[in-house]
């Protein structure tokens, strides 16, 4: 594995240089906290950032994305026939990605890129993107990633892992894509592999030690789906829920979307918008029947999907990477850690 040392004095210059070939995304401080956004030409990623309110999923899966478009003007060729909308799939790089967000993107990939179906919008964006992660030296209070299949220096889904060494960044180049991005930045001071790995291991160990919050997931797989579904705790968990979309929108792995057509004069466009299973509209049929009509059913669905159905279907752990965003942002403090532990420990009373 190749390691590169980047002097922080050269950082800005290198990032600027990479703009010749890459569109950049990264953490930005806004009035409301940090967000992962497209970086305008005068903007650098804020590498000192605290956890962002929203995850990085929007880089590949924007909240609203135009998929197709057509003209309704009958004098035009091809009117009323939807064609894929223009989009920029030139190389892009996300800088300073949290390792748990990179892992989350790999989980989302299981849904958008399968043997049978390939979501072209997500997949084309994925292929265009280089993921440059930043190890988390001081994990936040809400981080429980180490017990959710990720961790502060987890490499899964990353092309480069940066470690903040005070005056320098130590870059662990994990893929060819990552190497290409380092080349585009002009970062090439190679560091000793063994020594560098040892330095990262020290940071990693220290960071992992700071994560005290954890979930227990070991028994989820062996539980009977229907027994969990019928468990007596769902009404209590759901009582406080106001059915807003906060948990699903801040979640890095929530991948559900809704399709909407919008027409303005003679142009129609088809959009893919984030959807949320917390909304009664999510499952509302055209007949008026709603199979998930009550909030308990909806709250149960969210947790069952993340912590049971997903576990059973993909055998890749839970659909939660432990970023803690929903725990922090939920207006009524519904805590996925508690729900997960309840589910994991649940035994049906005969």
């Amino acid at each position: 594995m190749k390691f590169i040392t980047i002097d922080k004095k050269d950082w800005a210059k290198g990032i600027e240089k990479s703009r010749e070939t890459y569109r950049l995304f990264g953490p930005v401080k806004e009035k409301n906290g940090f967000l992962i956004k497209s970086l305008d030409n005068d903007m650098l990623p804020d590498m000192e950032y605290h956890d962002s309110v929203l995850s990085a999923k929007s880089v590949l899966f924007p909240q609203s994305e135009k998929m197709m478009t057509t003209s309704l003007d009958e004098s035009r060729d091809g009117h009323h026939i939807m064609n894929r909308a223009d989009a920029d799939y030139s190389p892009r790089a996300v800088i300073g990605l949290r390792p748990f967000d990179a892992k989350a993107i790999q989980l989302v990939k299981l849904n958008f890129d399968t043997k049978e179906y390939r979501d072209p919008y997500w997949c084309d964006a994925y292929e265009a993107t280089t993921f440059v992660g930043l190890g988390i030296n001081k994990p936040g209070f809400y981080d429980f990633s180490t017990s959710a299949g990720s961790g502060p220096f987890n490499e899964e889904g990353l092309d480069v892992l940066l470690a903040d060494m005070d005056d320098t960044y130590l870059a662990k180049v994990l893929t060819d894509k990552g190497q290409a991005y380092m080349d585009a930045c002009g970062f090439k001071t190679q560091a000793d592999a063994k020594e560098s790995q040892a330095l990262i291991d020290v940071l990693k160990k220290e960071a992992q030690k700071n994560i005290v919050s954890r979930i227990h997931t070991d028994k989820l797989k062996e539980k009977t789906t229907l027994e969990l579904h019928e468990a007596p705790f769902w009404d209590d968990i759901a009582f406080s829920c106001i059915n807003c979309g906060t948990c699903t929108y801040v979640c890095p792995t929530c991948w559900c979307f809704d399709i909407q057509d919008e027409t303005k004069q003679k142009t129609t466009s088809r959009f893919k918008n984030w959807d949320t299973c917390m909304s009664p509209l999510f499952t509302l049929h055209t007949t008026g029947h709603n199979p998930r009509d009550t909030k308990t059913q909806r709250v149960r669905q969210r947790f069952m999907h993340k912590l049971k159905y997903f576990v059973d279907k993909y055998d890749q752990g839970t659909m939660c990477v432990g970023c803690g965003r929903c725990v922090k942002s939920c207006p009524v403090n519904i805590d996925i850690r508690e729900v997960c532990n309840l589910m994991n420990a649940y035994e049906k009373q005969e």
Partner: protein
Amino acid sequence: MNTCINKIREIASKLLENGEVEKVIGFANGTIPMATSPVVINSKQDVDKLVFNSTCGLNLANYVRNQKGKVAVIAKGCDSRNIVTHIVENQVKRDQIHIIGVPCTGMINKKKIEALFGDDIIEFTEDGDTLNVKSSTREETLNKKEYLRDNCTLCMHRNPVVYDDLAGDLVQEQTLENPYPDVDRIEAMDADAKWQHFQELTQNCIRCYACRNACPLCYCPTCFVDESGPQWVGKGQNKTDVDTFHFLRAFHCAGRCTDCGACVEACPMDINVRDFTRKLNKDSFEMFGWEAGLDITKRPPLDVYSPGDPNAFIK
């Protein structure tokens, strides 16, 4: 205020034991610092779950609709005003609800406190007007009065306006020379600056509808943004659609909003949604001498005909 919890538990326990109510709706401790969660208690054994402190910023009037049987609810000044609004708007009957009133000295502004620290808050306790806040790197002792939510600093109805039991001594109401300084600031802007202000205000809205869903006024079976036949607004992130939601919601709350602040409390993007509703509160007050939720016998001003109406066209 935090001493009233013993009284709340005592009242709740008595009501449940005597079968006067089937359940008690209140707040329980959260799993993270500065958080409490609405909870329903069905039996006397569980009353110790109830807590009351300066982090109970949501409005429990939002939880009393569609309940079977009689329920008791813990109500701050604003919650009680929204219960009145519910009664006036036929959402609950007065005799279905037992109000445990809690005189309130204000709820804390969690975002303002968080902003003092560069890292996450790991511990929060309060003792009277003193707040002790700890992050992983430092500790601060704060005066609660300086860290109240904006709506609480401007609140003139801290005591519940209607109640069946009272869990503490009534508190001194604030007298304010100008209860609407925030609205005045926006009114003083020229049209462009005003537009800019509201454009920036909703810039990061993700349309999670936490503001709407935390609001006790927003009980429409289907909100206009959720209608599909006809569909009134687009559902994506188009700014016009986002703003249409906020503008229309605010207008729908005109003359009904108690400025309880639940919308701002719930917003994950820290948007001061009250900038929309406050102007309408001020107008209601100045044009009709109206503050919502003070009187069970009066209908809101946009819902009644009055010979004293200031508008000429209606006379």
